[in-house]
């Protein structure tokens, strides 16, 4: 008996080794993959690159919120639900969560792109050289997009100083896997950031395809058209109209695929309309993957959603928005009064508050036409007919009783430029353009209403300290003086 007990205890203690293995070595995750293996197969590399777009789709970034912020600091909407606090009043504090969300999401997307470029280069043997070029081009595109939005949110516009020598944002072009001091970089100048954006986009343009695998991917991933379009916008913001004109013309000329406006205004919006020839590049959302009830475009904008963002009378009034004719079709197709809140108007561009699958429209063909029109008009010595023709393509879709523009409609070049800017404001409303379209030409934000939609806010003069976001205080703290805060915060 005693022997039996001895044996039992010995067996138990020895049997231990298998048990030890069972509770240590054999505990392997099945819901995540070790990063050593993240680039170990073609499929994994493809997924990782798609992960770059997923980073852009962050709920604090291009799945909608980033677009909201740009419009909310413009005068066309107001924060009826008082949801965004101090942001629309240009009165944020440095610990405000909104800038922190944008900053984190933007740099996360940049890091993802950098990590993917490094991962692809380290595992090049798994891919064809053609595929490597495309995937790296897509990653550079993602990095450029992030830099573009970040520099405009966190730094004064390019035109703020003559050489754009004022503080921009840190340029991060390498991949990190540890708490590397090299990640603590000071802010480059705005000029340097723009140079990098242009470099990335030009390199991407060379290697990107005209079309991706299918229509869905062509509309949601980088293509020659989307890189060119973003490049055109970048030049426009730099006031480099010659390049903006050349590039937008390339798209209009069909060099990178066929694009056209839908027959009706709002034709590129709403379920089923996201993949038309009017869309150049969008950030898709789906029933299963969207920025939820508190962050999605339809929840904020749609009268049946949270309806936080109402259309301002600054936008609907023809005194403050003189190019918005009283019978413009967009007044009925783009705006609607709320039944629950009589007197409050909301946009209909985002239709699906229920499942929140509305795509975020980043670049639409109408923008290209208007960029071309504006750049051409500004470059011309007189009233330019080409610029008018491009503007009419957009305007005629919504025009009812007003006569079509002709050269005779304008006595000066500036009148035409104003008309194009006015058209741009209406056509691209609620799509994340307004504030930056004002600032890129040194404009002031005027006729802006407070959250009640009634009280006028003071005019926000171009170059005011708080017309840009604060660098998140947490980042300033962590950088130990390397990152400098924006003036006034």
């Amino acid at each position, binding site marked *: *008996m*005693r022997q039996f*007990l001895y044996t039992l*205890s010995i067996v138990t*203690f020895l049997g*231990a080794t298998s*048990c*030890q293995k*069972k*509770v*240590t*070595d054999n*505990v392997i*995750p*099945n819901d*995540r993959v*070790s*990063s050593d293996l*993240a680039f170990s197969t073609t499929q*994994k590399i493809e*997924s990782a690159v*798609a*992960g770059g*777009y*997923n980073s852009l789709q962050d709920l604090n970034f291009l799945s909608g919120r980033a677009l909201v912020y740009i419009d909310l600091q413009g005068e066309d909407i107001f924060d009826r*639900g008082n949801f965004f*606090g101090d942001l629309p009043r240009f009165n944020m504090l440095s*610990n405000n969560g909104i800038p922190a969300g944008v900053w*984190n999401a933007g*740099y996360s997307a*940049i*890091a993802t792109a*950098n990590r993917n470029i490094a991962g692809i280069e380290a595992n090049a043997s798994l891919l064809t050289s053609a595929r490597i070029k495309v995937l790296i081009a897509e990653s550079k595109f993602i990095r450029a997009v992030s830099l573009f939005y970040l520099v405009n949110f966190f730094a004064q516009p390019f035109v703020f100083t003559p050489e754009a020598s004022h503080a921009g944002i840190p340029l991060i072009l390498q991949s990190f*896997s540890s*708490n*590397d001091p090299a*990640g*603590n*970089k000071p802010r480059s100048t705005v000029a340097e950031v723009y140079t990098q954006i242009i470099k990335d986009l030009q390199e991407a343009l060379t290697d990107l395809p005209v079309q991706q695998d299918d229509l869905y991917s062509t509309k*949601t991933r980088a293509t020659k058209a989307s890189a060119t379009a973003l490049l055109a916008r970048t030049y426009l913001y730099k006031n480099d109209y010659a390049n903006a004109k050349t590039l937008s013309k390339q798209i209009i000329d069909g060099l990178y695929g066929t694009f056209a406006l839908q027959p009706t205004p709002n034709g590129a919006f709403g379920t089923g309309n996201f993949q038309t020839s009017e869309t150049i590049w969008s950030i*898709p*959302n*789906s*029933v*299963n*993957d969207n920025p939820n*009830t508190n962050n999605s475009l339809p929840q904020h904008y749609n009268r049946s*959603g*949270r309806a936080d963002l109402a259309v301002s009378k600054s936008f609907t009034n023809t005194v403050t928005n003189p190019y918005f004719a009283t019978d413009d079709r967009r007044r009925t197709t783009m705006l609607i009064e709320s039944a*629950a809140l009589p007197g409050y108007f909301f946009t209909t561009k985002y239709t699906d*508050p*229920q*499942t929140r699958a509305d795509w975020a429209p980043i670049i639409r063909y109408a923008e290209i036409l208007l960029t071309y029109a504006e750049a051409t008009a500004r470059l011309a010595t007189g009233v330019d007919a080409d610029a008018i023709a491009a503007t009419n393509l957009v305007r005629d879709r919504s025009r009812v009783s007003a006569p079509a523009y002709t050269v005779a409609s304008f006595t000066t070049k500036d009148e035409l430029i104003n008309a194009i800017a006015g058209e741009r404001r209406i056509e691209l409303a609620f799509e994340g353009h307004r504030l930056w379209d004002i600032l890129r030409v040194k404009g002031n934000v005027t006729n802006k209403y407070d959250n*009640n939609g009634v*009280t006028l806010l003071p005019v926000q003069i171009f170059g005011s300290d*708080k017309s840009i976001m604060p660098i998140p*205080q947490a*980042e300033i703290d*962590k950088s130990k003086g390397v990152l400098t805060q924006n003036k006034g*915060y």
Partner: protein
Amino acid sequence: MRKVLLLCLFLASMSSLLAQDRTVKGRVTNEKGEAVSSASVRIKNTKAGTVTGSDGSFSIIANDKTILIISSLGFESNEVTVGSQTEINIELKATAGNLGEVVVVGYQQLRKANLTGAVARVDGKEVANRPVMSFDQALTGKAAGVQVNTSSGLVGDNVLIRIRGAASISSGSQPLIVIDGVPVTQGNDQQLYNPVNTLADINPNDIESVEVLKDASAAAIYGSRGSAGVLLITTKKGKSGTATVSYDGYTGFSNASRMMKVLDGEQYNTVINKLATNSGSPPYAAYGDYDGDGQPDAYSTNWQDELYRNGGTQNHQVGISGGSGKTTYYGSIGYNDFKNYIMVNRLRRSSARLNLTTQATNWLETGIKMQYSQTNSFGLGSGTGGSLSGVPFGPLTAYPNVPVYNDDGSYYIGNGGNSPLNNTPNPLAVQTLNYDNRDTRRLLGTIYGEAKIIEGLRFKSQYAVDQLSAYTDQYWDPSVGDGNGSAGIAQTVANEKRIWSWTNTLNYVQKSGDHDFNVLLGTEYTRRNGTGFYALGIGINDVSLRLVDPANYASVNLQNFNTENNGLASYFGGINYGFKSKYIATFNLRADAYSGFGKDNRWGYFPSGAIAWRISKETFMESVSSIADLKLRASYGITGNSNIGDFPALATFIPTQYADIPSSNLSNPGNTSLKWEKTGQLDIGFDMTLRKGLQITFDYYNKETKDLILANPVLATLGFPGNVITQNIGQIRNQGLELSVSAPIFATKNFTWDLNFNTAWNKNKVISTNSNNDDILGGNAIIRPGHNLGAFFLIRWGGVNPDNGLPTFLDKNGERKQYDHSKPAASRWTTVKDGTVTTAVTATDRVLMNDKTPYPKIFGGLSQTLRYRNIDMLVDLQYSFGSYVYNSTLQNLMSFTSTRNKSVHILDAWAKPGDQTDVPRLYFGDNQFAQVSERWLEKGDFVRIRNIQLGYSIPKALLEKVQLTRVRIYAQAQNLFTFTGYKGMDPEANANGNVNLGLGVDFFRPALPRTYTIGVNIGL
């Protein structure tokens, strides 16, 4: 050997047959002559024996030569030769200071006399029949150095337990909880909007005792899990002898122990419109016209009254306990129902327990202890705390000038006559139409066999499981609040958590002469894993059918997930040696391997040693007659913390989606060099018992944790998820003193008065953080080397300038600056001194307030038990001094940038020059006054009357007629009153859950319930 043994037994029985057997009766009493029930009366050298009844009497077959051994817990055992006596009355002497008491210290039991560590024991009686939702709440104030903080009055909210301060920064600081050898799941568990305390699944009335292992000597046997201390819970077991049947029941009601006052309808209109018109805006607030007569209808709704009620509570427990021959048993069924004062909020638990031990053969004992329970919790459908439809955010901020219902009885959902800014959805509607319910089933079980190999050497193998499965069912109605924009949402989570743990120990206990050995060797393997299934339905069609079914919802989303996946392999050993019961030494060592570390850093070694000297046993102490026992203790040891997540060291990618395109993203940057966090703890203390029964335990400790596993906040430009990377950095120190006093102040036959007092003083300090000694910020607190852990880091408030009513703040140099929102942006900030335009007070002006931390400096409890004849009374006090609370609730209720309802404090606003107040001139849009600043930091000192009981036991003489042994009826009040200067709901309120950095923030936490019950304890 076995054969020899059998032969011996045979011979012994032979010899007993030869003598004249007869029945011997007797009674066992204590020194006061009171009956000692359940004492063991055993015939020496045999296994024959019995136990005394409730009157202390026994009867046994014996002969002249029989030697009886009479023993009972807490008494010195006694041997009596029967001789010619037929009736033997035996008086047992109580062991001094309960030193005969056996204390569970991990994997073995030690006599309290041989204990070298700091162990506090809380008797099961102290946690039974309290109207609290989980036993951990009942430990509040019961043991020195054990801080128990209930985050709010919400059912299932976090209960934080900190033993000797926070042992970590970002890893868990919650002690390990072991119930009958099962390291149990605690804390949150896949809840949706309501917190869940998984300890609520355990029936407090089944608990025999709770042992708190505080120092390294005691906790080190738990090695990597010991840093934050260990709570060992032993459930009841039967005693051999007559069966006892008991019934314990109580019933009562609860209400809110505190409410915050907010504006009524009229005050709201006045204040909001004053805010608006002062700033040049049109009035925002007005009564609405509901009856269509064109005239505004004045409503004043107190939403707190609408949502709060008198909740009902009841508890029933039937227990049977006893044993016959070789088997003892304890069984119970319990039912507890707690309806909170917050409408809908409720917790209901049914449980059954069976504890069984049997001496299968003379060398093998086996046992099983298991509990099965079902817990239903009914949560707030739209979440808790500060969410828009949460409680108390909803009732505190909703328009008070609108009706609750429409004329047709439906909920009023609208803005009334108010400008539609900041509408908080009708709190009653969201509360009644939405829900977040959870149904938990849990099996806790241990099965063991313990074999005696040779005399003194025992081998024990124990297998334990904790199996928890839960189903959460949540619904948002399409008509109101969160469900409104999505046309109705239903979510369900089905999840399961499984822990198994297999422990094998060899324990050698030997007493030979002056030498007393207790040697332990053991292995333990623990595996935890959890899986779950989540379903989401958006856009409901038929609102009466809520199952997430694609046929009834516009869209359905499904997901499988893992909740936990880790394992621990451990090898441990220890020796406890006593010489003449005077000099005692203990040494323990444990080696742990955790699955979550990289292979090279997996093993951690945790040694500890301790010595104790029972001075009172020395001859020179004999002259000091007042001291019955005095033991000096010193220990040092190292413990670890494995509460660090599943795979903190592994760099990982997870599958993600870019809408319809599958993608993958980095989920953790990983850190291959990550290793164990270690806490070295020195403890010096003494235990003293005076002859008169006064017991004092005193401890000093110094606890230093280094290689802290920290979720190090790093720059966003590195691009890691959540901007953190897990690293071993930093060092913190907790130093403290603990004192427990238990004193029989008065003891006569008819009147006794016992007092138990404990207090603890703790001071913590951050020694270092990372290699740069960077600050670590979280919430409004900071971790900075050389300063107190979690000190508040805020802009200083300078008061309201009485001349102009402007809010003022101090910049970092101490210059007082005022803010005038009515001025153009560039000239809003001026100096108070001379009114010149100056730079803004911003985050760069924050200062570290070293003396203001969320941790109390002194805390503890005072418990008094009084008995006069058959009447007994109990008063439990809890106190805490020196902590600070950031009152974010008030901060929000005073905001000048929203039109939500406000705290009544806003009525103190400055109105004319000379007004002395801390609320500035009302000005809508001023976002500086209510910004994060010292303005909202308050002292968290409090004394709480935690429990008062008054009981009456029906005299025995009366009971005997109805054949009952015990009937006690009592009335009790829980959280009767809290003395505090704190302006918020509760000074213990904690909005951030189980954290170390970010504690002490009160953001819309509901107050604790105040509960009154009457109850009865009946024994058969």
